[in-house]
């Protein structure tokens, strides 16, 4: 307990950064992932191929390598210099969006083809059909795997510690510098994560309950 009370500032600061990193990456990957899923079901072959290539590349690469790319290789391209925090958020977003894309796409596949036919018969365009009819139903059917992907993202943020972002994963470095009990310190990190995931689980439960009638 003394590890926690002695270093409460460190814990709060680090987890504050974790939550920020998670927040930006979660929003980013939900938006990008959904967009990619739309491309993957679009009637245009080039768009489908582009999205499929993206998903294959990002989903098959270890996250650490994506980080390495954004912190060491990307700066060499001299496009736009990124601080470690935004670079980490971009890396997490690009990586996680590939998974979100596949979850959303599997949701799209659960929507009966008649829903799309009815939309087209009423004169809705392809994008109107997706945004008003297909995607809302797709997302409703994939709430559990979607939340699981977000939970994985939350825990994946700890990789950023290896790339100069002072989030929860970096707590162990500071503790060992100060000669604190590392095992106890890490146990507290685990406890914090368990607590952080609870709201996500509750969100999943309430969404599932709310949408049980409507589909």
């Amino acid at each position, binding site marked *: 307990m003394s590890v926690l009370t002695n270093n409460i500032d460190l814990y709060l600061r680090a987890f504050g950064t974790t939550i920020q990193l998670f927040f930006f990456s979660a929003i980013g990957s939900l938006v990008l992932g959904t967009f990619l899923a739309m491309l993957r079901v679009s009637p245009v072959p080039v768009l489908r191929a582009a999205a499929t290539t993206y998903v294959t590349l990002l989903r098959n690469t270890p996250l650490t390598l994506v980080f390495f790319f954004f912190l060491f290789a990307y700066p060499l391209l001299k496009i736009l210099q990124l601080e470690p925090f935004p670079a980490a958020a971009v890396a997490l977003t690009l990586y996680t969006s590939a998974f979100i894309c596949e979850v959303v796409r599997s949701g799209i596949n659960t929507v*009966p083809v008649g829903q799309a036919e009815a939309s087209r018969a009423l*004169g809705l365009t392809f994008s109107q059909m997706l945004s008003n009819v297909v995607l809302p139903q797709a997302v409703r059917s994939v709430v559990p795997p979607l939340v699981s992907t977000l939970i994985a993202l939350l825990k994946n943020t700890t990789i950023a510690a290896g790339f100069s972002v002072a989030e929860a994963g970096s707590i162990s470095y500071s503790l060992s510098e100060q000669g604190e009990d590392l095992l106890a310190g890490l146990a507290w990190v685990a406890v914090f994560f368990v607590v952080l995931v609870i709201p996500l689980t509750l969100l999943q439960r309430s969404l599932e309950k709310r949408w049980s009638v409507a*589909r």
Partner: protein
Amino acid sequence: MTSPAQAPPMIRMAGVDKFFGPLHVLKNVELEVPKGQVVVVLGPSGSGKSTLCRTINRLEPIDSGTIEVDGQPLPSEGKQLARLRADVGMVFQSFNLFAHKSIVDNVMLAPVKVRKTSTSEARKKAMELLERVGIANQAEKFPAQLSGGQQQRVAIARALAMNPKVMLFDEPTSALDPEMVQEVLDVMTTLASEGMTMLVVTHEMGFARKAADRVIFMADGEVVEDSTPTEFFSAPKSNRAKDFLGKILTH
């Protein structure tokens, strides 16, 4: 009423061919439906009648021939096709109500998104239509909470909300429990008597006799007979139609 010679027919199909792989599902189909006419398409299953219905708003693209709706040839996929579909109402065998939207939202969606009608106006119109098909009191429920017959009546209201020039019905009562068939047919009969141009693929002979101006009989992808209901049911010309009617009457 204008004569068919002056106004273009509401639906015109000429030399229409359609294949599903090696299967020739529509064979050189010629069909004209003048404005205001109610045409019932009959035929054994697999005769291509549903496919015929679905080609008219290009849910099934055709392989050759031409299809015109109100004098306009069907455009290929894109905004123009969407605009044409907005004028062609369609009712499906499996209702296809939007499962995540309430009944009134189902009816309002296309007028608001496609016709850009204001929400308040679309809601007013939707409630009127729901009143007309007898479901106004269920407006806030979701499709899954309604019976099949009620869902199909909502589907008709949803199509009517776009003020279509023509209505296509693809076996609208085939997925219904027997006791719910009549309530849907009643709505369709009223619509027919109000002068709506309708093309109805169905197995309901009673509806064909009562509401149809004209009966098309299809077999093996071909239009075999094209006559009035009285003629068709009392004196079918082809053997295939006689055979078909014989089977139905024994049941």
